[in-house]
């Protein structure tokens, strides 16, 4: 079983260069994040490079400090590494929560149909059109000193409708397939049909749901942080950009402080989007070649 899934995954990746590129970029970032404590230690050479006044203030990039230091004399490269790991964790936590909620809502709505579907879909639709950013800002204004996990939960409140919408439309098209009818005729229970018949066929779309809600979550937190209204105690890449703006790194020409986080986040968004489009291309033959060669 595991082997079969593994070979299927490998075949999928082989079929789409775009998916492969996205996954490779993501993989490199995850590796960097995993090894960030080691990297930070190596930079510090025994002491903490992110400590206030660890080095001189506003050092220009050089061999000792690849990206220079900030207004408190902290090593920017070490800060960026640590923040990258935080941003990725937020994406993973919020992505998983939103995907689980989205899958449950999508299955209940799409499989049951009728008035339940009507209510759930209208509700999802409403959440999709509400500009959620004001709500997110307001929520985070009261979330001082929260843990990373709580921030993830907070952001997934607004990220799950995207996953739910993508998956629901697939459930709708799958539930009338002959093999589902066959399972139903042979008196399989609803839950059994969902787990054994529908879920395996939906995995790629669940992957799309995960990638887009993770993207939305990282995007949302960065948005909060860059206007200085992020939840307290969480230092992600957005927070570094915010620091750069407020301390006048732009006027001082300390470009690494904001260019590096921006480039990293842009790469991350690009990779997630490539995974999304790659997966859809492979599993939705009508789209094949449509999104680009």
């Amino acid at each position, binding site marked *: 079983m595991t082997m079969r899934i593994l070979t299927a995954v490998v075949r999928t990746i082989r079929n789409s260069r775009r998916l492969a590129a996205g996954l490779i970029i993501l993989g490199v970032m995850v590796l960097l994040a995993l090894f960030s404590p080691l990297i930070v230690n190596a930079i510090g050479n025994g002491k903490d490079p992110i400590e206030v006044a660890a080095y001189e203030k506003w050092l220009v990039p050089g061999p000792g400090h690849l990206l220079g230091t900030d207004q408190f004399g902290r090593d920017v490269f070490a800060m960026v590494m640590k923040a990258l790991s935080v941003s990725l964790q937020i994406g993973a936590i919020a992505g998983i929560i939103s995907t689980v909620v989205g899958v449950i809502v999508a299955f209940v709505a799409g499989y049951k149909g009728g008035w339940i579907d*009507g209510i759930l879909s209208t509700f999802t639709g409403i959440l999709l*059109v*509400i*500009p959620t950013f004001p*709500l997110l800002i*307001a929520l985070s204004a009261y979330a001082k000193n929260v843990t990373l996990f709580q921030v993830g939960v907070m952001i997934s409140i607004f990220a799950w409708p995207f996953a739910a919408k993508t998956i629901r439309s697939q459930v709708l098209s799958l539930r009338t397939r002959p093999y589902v009818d066959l399972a139903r005729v042979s008196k399989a229970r609803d839950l059994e049909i969902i787990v054994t018949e529908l879920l395996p066929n939906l995995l790629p779309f669940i992957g799309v749901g995960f990638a887009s809600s993770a993207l939305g979550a990282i*995007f949302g937190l960065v948005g909060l942080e860059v206007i200085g209204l992020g939840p307290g105690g969480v230092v992600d890449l957005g927070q570094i950009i915010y620091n750069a703006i407020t301390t006048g790194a732009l006027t001082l020409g300390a470009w690494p402080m904001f260019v590096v986080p*921006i480039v990293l986040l842009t790469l991350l968004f690009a990779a997630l989007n490539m995974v999304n489009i790659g997966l859809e291309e492979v599993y939705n033959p*009508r789209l094949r070649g449509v999104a680009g060669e």
Partner: protein
Amino acid sequence: MTADAPPVVVVDESQDSAPPPSGVRVWLSRHPLAAYAIRRVGLYFVELWGALTIAFFFFRLIPGDPIQTLIQTLQQNYMYNQQASTELIARYQQEFGLTGNLFSQYLKYMEKLVLHGDLGPSLINYPTPAQDVILRALPWTIGLLGISAVLAWIFGVILGAIAGWRRGKLGSAIATNLSIALSHVPYFFVALILVYIFAYSLGVLPARSAYDSNITPGLSLEFIGSVLKYGLLPGLSIVIIGTFSWILSTRMLMVPVLGEDYLVYAEAKGLKGWRILTRYALRNCYLPQITAFGISLGFIFNGNVLVEQLFNYPGLGTTLVTAIQQLDFNTILGVTNIAIFSVLTAVLLLDLLLPLLDPRVKYWK
């Protein structure tokens, strides 16, 4: 939603023989467009009510006491030293609609909003009503956001159509891959890079505010020129990223159309490529993009908050952030409600206009 909704209009087969039992149903079955419009408008009101209600309860259930904040502000600003009397607090609570339980607050808020268009007093600019604060900021946001969003849509649809048309060529591949990479980047990032290059490094364009403060606002050429100059960087950042995301989606709609028989026919007739592209191919794929434009307004608003904040632009986004920092509930809710209202109304209007633009669109199947 519309795809799987049960058919509302049932064709009355007993039309000729017996007089119909209900006149309304027959009228609806004879006027399918009207039936569709009624159903669509009904859905609009349900969505609008739902969204406004969610927003109201969301902001009321968040902890924080706006009256205490107001008293504190008063104490700071007017040397108001003694403890605020209970009477004073009660009066403010009355004015801000914070008396009674949550549900009666909700009814009162909705009544004022629906019947009088009143959002309650604003805290940051007390006693100016929140709607006045919002109306002051609204033209700036509509000007910046509206123009940039429309420009991005036009550029994106045109470039996307060309990218689809010339698929397989190098330029098209570059445009497509760039769009995939950049379509989900926050406007804010582009804005920051633009500010760094044009405002700080080159010093040619202003980085803050919406117009030169030395010029008095008015309908003078000088003022308009200043507004345009100051709006260039924030607008450009929205246009750049917006264009990329429209390129991608237009291309996705365009490519399947290119395989259609009528395009082969048009080519066989000897029509020029440009004419086939604009009159045959593009006309069949720009309509879904019109609907998508309405839906995208909400997301553009989200991104616009950050851009306005960066440029200190006096629009709704900046108002919203200030209001949140000061716990000004009436203004926060007001801005959110305006955004909800404009997105839902835009989608409704586009849905109702679509059958007029495209004779193939039939909702009453």
